């Protein structure tokens, strides 16, 4: 036990003044840093321009009596993990089981291992999910999707019910409008929204 307790030599009014300055600067920097981070995480990706009706030239097979749910993902995008978790969540909450496809982009020149990432395995582990490899992003382009995590829901007739992201922010799991809408639609209720922001990596490199 120190007795009596000694104040560091640094503690005098001069130092305290510096301290105030330093602390303020630090706070401002931290806040700025966090703001930047949040901005990034809340910056939505490019929205899909999905066809209103199921495209006929897709390789994906639309089931006749089921809605079809497609999620397009960049196999390496870590943020999409959250989307996959939300997908599983959504499927688990739905009464009607849609035909669910998760498409993983495999650009040309990249190996299969690159495409079959652990995201692939996570997706494959979700019951009822068919994981498809989308070579060169053909399907993605067909569906007009450019951001990883984009989810599209077509009804029995092939009409687009929902197109959007199912995460609240980039790589953020948790309750969000997108997932709720999906669930609502699958439970034949009105969706919260028909379109939501998509948070994820860009499927295509800039310019593509």
């Amino acid at each position: 036990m120190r007795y009596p307790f000694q104040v560091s030599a640094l503690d005098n009014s001069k130092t305290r003044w510096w301290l105030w300055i330093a602390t303020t600067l630090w706070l401002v920097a931290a806040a700025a840093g966090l703001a930047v981070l949040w901005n990034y995480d809340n910056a939505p990706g490019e929205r899909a321009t999905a066809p209103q009706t199921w495209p006929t030239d897709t390789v994906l097979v639309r089931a006749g009596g089921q809605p079809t749910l497609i999620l397009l993902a960049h196999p390496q995008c870590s943020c999409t993990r959250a989307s996959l978790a939300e997908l599983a969540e959504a499927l688990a909450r739905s009464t009607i089981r849609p035909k669910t496809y998760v498409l993983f982009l495999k650009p040309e020149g990249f190996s299969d291992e690159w495409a079959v990432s652990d995201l692939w395995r996570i997706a494959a582990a979700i019951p009822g999910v068919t994981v498809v490899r989308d070579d060169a992003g053909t399907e993605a382009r067909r569906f007009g999707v450019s951001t990883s995590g984009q989810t599209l829901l077509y009804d029995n007739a092939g009409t687009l019910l929902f197109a959007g992201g199912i995460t609240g922010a980039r790589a953020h799991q948790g309750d969000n409008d997108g997932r709720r809408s999906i669930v609502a639609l699958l439970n034949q209720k009105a969706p919260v929204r028909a379109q939501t922001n998509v948070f994820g990596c860009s499927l295509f490199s800039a310019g593509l």
Partner: protein
Amino acid sequence: MLLPQTDDPAAASVSRRAAELFAAHKHEIHTRTDRLFAGLMALQWVGGILFAVWVSPLAWSGTTSSTHLHVWAAVVLGGLISLFPALLALLRPGLPSTRYTIATAQMLMGALLIHLTGGRIETHFHVFGSLAFLAFYRDWRVLVPATVVVALDHILRGMFWPQSVYGVLVASHWRWLEHAAWVIFEDVFLVVACLRSVGELRETADRTAALEQEVRTRHKAEVDARNSEARSEAILNVALDCVILMEESGRIVRFNPAAERTFGYAASEAVGQPLADLMIPADQRGAYQDALPRYLKTGEATGTNRRFELTAIRKTGEIFPVEVAIAPISSDGAAMFAGYMRDITERRRNEAALAEYTRDLEVAHETQRQNSQQLAALVDQLRLTQRRAEDATRAKSDFLASMSHELRTPLNAIILYSELLQEVAEDDGKDTQSITDLQKIQSAGKHLLALINGILDLSKIEAGKMTLSRESFDVREMIDDLLDTVAPLVRKNNNTLTVRCGDGVGTMSSDLMKTRQILINLLSNAGKFTRDGAVTVDVNRRAAGAQALIEFTVSDTGVGMTQAQTERIFDAFTQADVTTTRQYGGTGLGLALVSRFCELMKGSVSVESRPGEGSRFTVCLPLEAAPVEVPAVIGA
């Protein structure tokens, strides 16, 4: 606070000490927790980086990847958030500013981590965990900035990035409220815990301070007691008198060094023994042994609390007197006795000696008193005699004064008449027989006059009434003058008279009459006692030290005197021989007067003589006599 507020300075110092201890303890806790958080910050930072690198190392845009912003965020932002407070914790531990900064940073880090981990529920526990950790400070105030940061995080996000709570305001309101409620609940819980903990710290501090005081007091009391004990021991050890402590039965309990020395027993021998057996001669124990039980029974005692003398016995068997004082003391309920003894052999001896001296002194005193009385009586007698003598002297001088006049007056007539008759007879041519007869009358008268004058002078000198006069006179002239008187006397016996005056004999300042008388007396003697011889007068100036003298030497070639005679001749009425008067005449007063006059005038007279050869009288007188105003007294 445990201790009550008082004005007592001791209590005040205890409070102060408690406050010190409390503050120190708190500071220690703060410092320790600061250090803990510094470590935690580092861990979180590293953890954040690892997680970011592991989970989302790359951000893809199609085929291109770049380092995920999360990684940058983890490294840079994480570092920024973590390192500043860590630095503060190391440089300025224990200060409120440090821990508030840490609290803020901890929650900011939490926000970052939640973000990096994608808002996982588990990560939200970081908030609760952080708050709990912050409670380690025991300072509830740190929860304030933490809670504020958490709140701001939600509010600001809600304000600036509503997309993240996009359209789900209602639902996420509940969510947010629930989250807030949990946070508030935890805060309240933690605040209470902190306060209680602080209270306990305070109590501990108070108790410790009080305990310290207690220990100090007790220690001091012990030290005081020890000192007191040591002092008491010392007092007993250095005491020159015997100090003996006895218990009820009369057995010795303490026996101090003085007692050891006096009685010859070591303390170890004496302790446990009955005092009576040890130190009182056998034949005298009885009285003591009766007294003790009586005192114990009745509480009455004649021997306590006063001094008395006893006979005691040493170990050697020697009997000696002691002065004793015994006082009862009660200690812890038991009756004990303290005995103080002093060996008074020396004192007895001294007392005896003193008594004897006193007796002798008294006797001497008595004798002295008697002597004094006698002396006083003698003194009184003496005084009486003296007074009588003085009275006699006064009477005598008064008598003389009056007689002087009375005697001279008829004598004046006798002499003058006889002279007259002689003159007439001569003129009338009367026969020589008549003239001779008349001459005889004259000479008888002159003799009578000489006698009277001599006696009167002597008496005056004796009575201290003789005065000296002072006048200046020429010595030579005086001598010439008296030669007229003296020459006949000298020449009568067919003697020659020679006067020789030395140089420097000028004037004298003295009593002329007496000087004359001296010389006249000497010369008439010289003339009388010399036949067919020579009488010489020598006058010279002499010096005796600083004083100038005139020396008159009257020498003759007369009959001379023996040594014995010379010693007596200056006495009154004494002549060289009883036959001298018959043969030579004279009164026997002449030399007495010479000697006394010389004395009065501070001169001297001396004689040398040899029978058959003659005598020489030398008179020295001061040239300048001292001024006189009072009657001269011989011996003054």
